């Protein structure tokens, strides 16, 4: 298994431990990662200009396809953003023509053969639960984790594809259980963390976060388990006040695989 790793903007800036842990875990599971000169996925620009968003997103897709590689993202917003760009290229002929002209200026070609995958999707579908379970050496049974799905990996389900059932997904809980940890059931697990409004409407953003944290706590979780830098950066500063901590999924898996905490960014 070989992928072009798309680290994105937020992980190096806000949660570098996510990249460390993901590289450590994927190395252990035999997934080869290639580093390409990727830029922004386009997600922040999509709010303001579709052309700016597509110019950024499609350049990344073109770079990966030139190397005949599929893209692996760790961030759910990068995942959703790149997947939506692919979706538009496939379904909107007008967009496809305009983007092709724009890319030609940088000697890049459009290709629809490249797919975009998220870390959780790769672990569940390609690596597989059995292989993960077989490699677990330190059962994480003490952890009671609340799976924090993140919106852009689930919806819109005609664009992204983390789970076959976007209304009642189980993939994140299954991945948590594969490490031996408990995955608690909590009503608001599919809701928005509020991160997209952190700058433009901090009060509303904080309310969305508090509601989720309180819900997870009430359901008996001790830790929020995330797989997106936006969710992690949004939840972790407030989690302590809610009586919770946060862990990124590859950190949990890494511990279960017996990887030293320092290599998972945990010390």
């Amino acid at each position, binding site marked *: 298994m070989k992928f072009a790793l798309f680290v994105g903007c937020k992980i190096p800036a806000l949660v570098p431990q996510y990249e460390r842990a993901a590289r450590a875990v994927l190395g252990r599971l035999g997934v080869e990662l290639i580093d390409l000169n990727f830029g922004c996925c386009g997600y922040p620009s999509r709010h303001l*200009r579709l*052309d700016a968003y597509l110019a950024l997103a499609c350049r990344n897709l073109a770079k990966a396809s030139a190397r005949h590689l599929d893209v692996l993202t760790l961030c759910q917003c990068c995942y959703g953003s790149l997947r939506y760009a692919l979706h538009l290229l496939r379904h909107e002929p007008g967009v496809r023509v305009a983007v092709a002209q724009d890319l030609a200026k940088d000697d890049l070609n459009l290709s629809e053969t490249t797919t975009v995958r998220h870390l959780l999707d790769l672990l569940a579908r390609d690596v597989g639960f059995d292989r993960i379970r077989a490699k677990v050496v330190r059962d994480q049974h003490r952890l009671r984790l609340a799976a924090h799905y993140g919106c852009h990996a689930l*919806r819109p389900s005609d664009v992204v594809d983390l789970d076959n059932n976007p209304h009642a997904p189980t993939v994140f809980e299954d991945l948590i259980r594969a490490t031996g940890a408990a995955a608690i059931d909590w009503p608001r697990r599919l809701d928005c963390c509020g991160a997209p409004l952190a700058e433009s409407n901090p009060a509303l953003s904080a309310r969305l976060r508090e509601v989720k944290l309180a819900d997870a706590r009430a359901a008996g979780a001790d830790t929020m388990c995330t797989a997106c830098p936006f969710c992690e950066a949004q939840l972790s500063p407030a989690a302590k006040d809610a009586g919770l901590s946060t862990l990124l999924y590859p950190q949990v898996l890494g511990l279960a695989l017996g990887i030293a905490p320092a290599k998972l960014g945990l010390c």
Partner: protein
Amino acid sequence: MTSFFIPWGLIASLAIAATGIAYRVVIWLSRSVDDRATCPPASVRVAALVTGTFGSLFGPRMPRMLAAFGLDVLVQRKLWQRDRLRWLAHMAIFVGFGGLFLVHALHGVVTEKLWPGYCSTVNPWLWLRDLLGLLAVAGLALTEVRRRFSRSLLPAPKPRDLVFVALVAAILATGFLLTAAKIISAPDFERMVATYSNLSAEEQQPLKVYWQTEYGMVFPASAPDAALLKTGEEVHESACASCHSRPQSAFVSYPLSRLLRAVAVPLAAANASVVLFNLHVLLCLLGIAYLPFGRALHIFAAPTSLVAAAGAATPATVNAVARRSLALDACVRCGLCDERCSVAALWALFDNPLVLPASKLDGVRRLSAEKLIDANELATLAQGAYACTECGRCTRDCPVGLDLDDLWTALKARLASCGQPTPAARVKTASASQWADRLAASSGTNGAVARAGRLTDAPRIFSHCVQCQTCTNVCPVVAESFGPGGVDATPQRVMNLLRLGMTELALGSRMVWNCTTCYQCQEHCPAGIRVTDVLYDLRNQAYAQMSALAAIDSPAKGDAL
């Protein structure tokens, strides 16, 4: 040989340099990138600088500052990691020119103190000088070649940036020419003999023959004479050899002197070596005087910035304001940040170089110097500032160690205070219906791609909405928005506005701009309407029209600040 520029020319150039640097320091402490309303007054900043500097110099951060000076300033660790070719060019110029400055220019204060037997015409000093000069020339050439062939996104350097490079090149060229001219200069020979020896005219003749044959000297009228050569060598050994290695070891200047041989006589008549010497000295003095005014300032500003950053207290103090001002002078415009910028591709699309960090820093400099008075330029800078995704690559890659992330954050606060807030903040300055009135007159578009992807122009996208309210019921923003400042229209009402052809009323609505894009509405819509995508599209449309409107409404020149 003494120059008639010494000492007064040296004193004048040092005075100009010192005044210039003092002026820059005053600017670092008085001007500010920050929002002027929150920026502390100059007196507070000076006091903070004094206490901060003492705290750092005599505190626990001193080792970090020393490490920064060694690894980041002298060895250029970051440049080595990012671009070996540039590192090579930089180190060649730094070691070459810096070495000449220490060993050659400061020979009286440095070299003679360390090596008491120092004599510039004896090896290793003779060939070392040529080696250092050649290194510097090679470094300059490498820089220029790389600049020509790289696809840099930086605008062409300004004339004042090139002045210092031209001065350095001219200093090196006159240095080599001077050495070459002296190798063949008969007047210099006569002067040396008169000054340092008591040789009679009979003894001088064989010495001239020897120097013409072995040392490359050119005399107007004398032919090699084998008989005198032996005598000449003896005279040379007793009178000259202790202070003169063979000029052939000056491996650049000596071949150059062979080229000049043909014009040796006119050069001697014109006293060329004296003229070149004074020219060389004059250029060096000009270089010193110019230090604070062009790109050369980085020689002083970049190490200061690197060491100050290593010694800075955390969390940031008032001194962060001065460090931001300092950063504007410390940037060497290498453009490494531009090459790796996450949103570099937007530069061409927006036709706005201020998207790129190095150019954006130029814009910040103009804003900080209060030169940015044109509202259009301010809007261009704002577009560049808000396109940034805060990925931090520019900061991590900067060989001068500038905290560019911090600079961009300060820039955004400053822009917000002078009429260029983020688009989301601008929307909040008026209600949806006020925006609808204003935007009715505007007609901004975003180019071919945006038109191709536009959803709100196509009734098939939203006309089949049955107003069932499922979207509203699953919306987390609606659920958490009560009272003033909440949503003014639910998603279902926005769809209805579109159906009624009242798109303008939706553009500035809080619902559109408070949407978290969680896609619950779209995923749950029983009619399969792309509700979230439509909200995205409305923001795009609003942004285009508001930008067009801002261009019309832009304040008169001078009012922007």
